[in-house]
């Protein structure tokens, strides 16, 4: 069904349809509409979920960790100061291999105090082991949030996914949104090693350097395997719902003299700028790159910091 919705509302609708067991969140501009809408869905019975209104973002993610370790599908949303405040916990999520999905509405960090869009908040999370995706339209915010649950919870991945949308520029803009009936697009979550009272075990115990290295290596390997899962998820999404996404999106790149590399909504605006420049005879296409990719892919596409993952991907495609 086509309607007009904000980026925030699109994320909330997708979360409603993904049906998390637990949502723990703390409001912050410009993200508040997401958790406010979810709270409303829970209160009105549209979403059968435990909504935990906590006293801070650190606690929000701590509550999500507890729920996720118990095998619950878990969601939260934050922005800016909230994200950096929960940073200790975001590390724990990836280290504990918990497939939590989080929407982060990109906003600058203070001081100077500023509530508008900037990617610094998410960039500070690059090395935590979260998969990051940057979206550029309201529709993409919705579609990506749906896909994020399937990708995060896939047994080859089991890593958290952060869906990033530009503060106000996307969170508050109203655009056409076509919602779908996801059906069995997101399979039920079966978390291996979930807490089982009948089979008690230790979680987050002390690990010696050799074991710690092994854990980090496993995260690295899953980050690489995620590429296949993302591709497969995109394909199935396209087959079922008719909208196609990739790791990156190029625009008039073939005969480019200058390439603009961007994340989020800037890529769409760059397309307009490129059309104008081309009319003026400058071949300067945009590649609105890394719209839905992990940290390593993004570095590769940007043409800087060639990573091992990119090399691996290249080898695979050749």
């Amino acid at each position, binding site marked *: 069904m086509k*309607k*007009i919705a904000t980026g925030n509302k699109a994320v909330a609708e997708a979360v409603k349809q993904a049906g998390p067991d637990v949502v723990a969140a703390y409001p912050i501009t*410009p993200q508040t509409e997401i958790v406010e809408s979810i709270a409303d869905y829970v209160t009105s019975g549209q979403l059968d979920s435990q909504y935990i209104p906590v006293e801070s973002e650190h606690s929000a993610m701590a509550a999500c960790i507890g729920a996720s370790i118990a095998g619950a599908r878990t969601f939260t949303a934050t922005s800016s100061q909230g994200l950096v405040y929960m940073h200790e916990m975001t590390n724990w999520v990836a280290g504990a291999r918990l497939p939590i999905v989080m929407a982060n509405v990109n906003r600058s960090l203070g001081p100077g105090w500023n509530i508008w869009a900037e990617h610094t908040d998410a960039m500070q999370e690059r090395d935590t082991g979260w998969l990051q995706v940057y979206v550029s339209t309201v529709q993409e915010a919705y579609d990506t949030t749906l896909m994020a649950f399937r990708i995060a919870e896939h047994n080859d991945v089991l890593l958290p996914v952060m869906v990033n949308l530009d503060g*106000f520029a*996307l969170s508050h*803009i109203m*655009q056409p949104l076509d919602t779908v009936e996801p059906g069995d697009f997101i399979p039920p979550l079966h978390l291996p090693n979930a807490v089982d009272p009948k089979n008690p075990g230790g979680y987050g115990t002390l690990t010696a350097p050799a074991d710690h290295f092994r854990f980090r290596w496993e995260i690295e390997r899953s980050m690489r395997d995620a590429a296949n899962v993302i591709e497969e998820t995109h394909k199935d999404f396209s087959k079922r719902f008719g909208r196609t996404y990739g790791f990156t999106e190029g625009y008039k790149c073939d005969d480019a003299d200058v390439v603009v590399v961007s994340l989020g909504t800037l890529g*769409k605006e760059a397309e307009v700028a490129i059309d104008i420049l081309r009319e003026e005879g400058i071949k300067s296409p945009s590649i609105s790159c890394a719209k839905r990719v992990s940290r390593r892919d993004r570095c590769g596409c940007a043409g800087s910091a060639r990573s091992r993952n990119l090399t691996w991907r290249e080898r695979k495609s050749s």
Partner: protein
Amino acid sequence: MTVYEIRIHSRGGQGGVTAARLLAMAALHDGKYATACPFYGAERRGAPVVSFVRIDDYPIRIYSQIREPDLVVVLDASVMETVDVLHGIKKGGRVFINSAHLHEFAGFVTYNVDLTGIALKINLMVAGSPILNTSVLGALAKIGIITAGSAKGIVSADSAKSAIREMFTDERNVSASDAAYMEMSA
């Protein structure tokens, strides 16, 4: 660049953002693409605020605020005392003002309907204030009739009604929109 751009001036709490949303919804009913957004600042009740609508036959790839609108809509004429509502408006652009009197601006086509009067007449109020953001759609739909062929971005009367009904159950909103449509003069 064929996108039709509308800037709405109002005061915080008067529903300028909802008016923008309704226009985008109506455009969608017309089979067009549309985006709507508020000005992102420290908005507050009673202060002059702006919101924006873009309507096009193609997907809209611009997210920024509108600097050169094709149409300016003023829901509260008193903001004109402190805000230059004509700022940046395109040459030959149009201005609609909620007012019982026609305001003339050299070089611009100006329209007016007393939306406040319509709301007061049928007691279409919320928290003691007249509702203006639904009736304005009827007035703007009439501009499409008046300027047939040249105002491609203006929504149709049928779509305006559909959008209003999608968002509000009080049928007086549609009556107000109809009344505004009738009162708009060519």
